[in-house]
């Protein structure tokens, strides 16, 4: 019963919190309306997100978030350096193929988003069976090392989180 009313409890919580933050001042009215949105929106969008992902390692979520924030800062400096001081023809821009070990759609989406936000890489496509990511790297002199970094740094943790 509760699972049918709240298909994604975490999404409900997130939507409520976001609505209260949007109001910028917590009041009974904003909390109530936030809760209303938090209940109605997951119900309306359930056909697009039928199954509930299981978070196996909540501590790793925080670790992952901090790691990604740090990597975004580093990546920004790196990309700024490449743009300012490297001639465009010296850049080793190429497509990389990242084979995926995880089978959970939520983990793949998170990985693709992380890749886009961090070290000189943008994820462009996924293989039709969802088992490999197509990634474009701005400067990857050693493609195998770049793929290994992505797998070790991000996918290993996502595997811990989503299984």
């Amino acid at each position: 019963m509760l699972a049918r009313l709240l298909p994604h409890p975490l999404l409900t919580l997130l939507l409520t919190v976001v609505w209260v933050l949007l109001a910028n001042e917590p009041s009974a009215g904003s909390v109530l309306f936030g809760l209303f949105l938090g209940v109605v929106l997951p119900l309306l969008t359930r056909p697009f997100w039928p199954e509930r992902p299981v978070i196996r390692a909540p501590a790793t979520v925080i670790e992952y978030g901090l790691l990604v924030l740090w990597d975004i800062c580093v990546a920004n400096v790196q990309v700024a350096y490449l743009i300012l001081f490297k001639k465009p023809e010296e850049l080793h821009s190429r497509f990389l193929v990242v084979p995926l070990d995880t089978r959970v759609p939520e983990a793949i989406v998170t990985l693709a988003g992380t890749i886009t936000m961090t070290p000189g890489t943008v994820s462009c496509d996924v293989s039709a069976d969802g088992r490999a990511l197509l990634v474009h790297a701005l400067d990857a002199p050693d493609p195998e090392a770049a793929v290994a970094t992505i797998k070790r740094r991000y996918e290993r943790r996502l595997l811990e989180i989503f299984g």
Partner: protein
Amino acid sequence: MSGGLLGFLGEAAVALLLIAGSFFMIVGSFGLLRLPSLMQRLHAPTKATTLGVGGILIASMLFFLFTTGRVSVHELLITLFLFLTAPVTAYMLAKAHLHRARLQKELPPTGRPVGWATFDPAASDPDPDSGLRPTDGR
């Protein structure tokens, strides 16, 4: 902003963050101008500008903390929405580019029996009843 040493330090921190943020914004825009291919240009707005916007948002939070003494959280929301939308935008641009430039032949092979989803739509949804899950489950 209040006077005194604390006020000065606050002002200096806000100013520094604004300058650093603007620097990364301008580098991102410069990259858009300088890099030759579309796939390379895609890197500038998804990265260099993230830190730029981040710096300016933190500066804004600090400024309102010092002037009104209250914590403003709208900036955190902007960061959240940015992190949600930037990868989707980049993905849509890349996909459109792959179609328009007809790059199918130049992409590396998937290492799988099927092609990339952009060019191989039939295989991506083998069973309409299986929802959004790809083949053979977990």
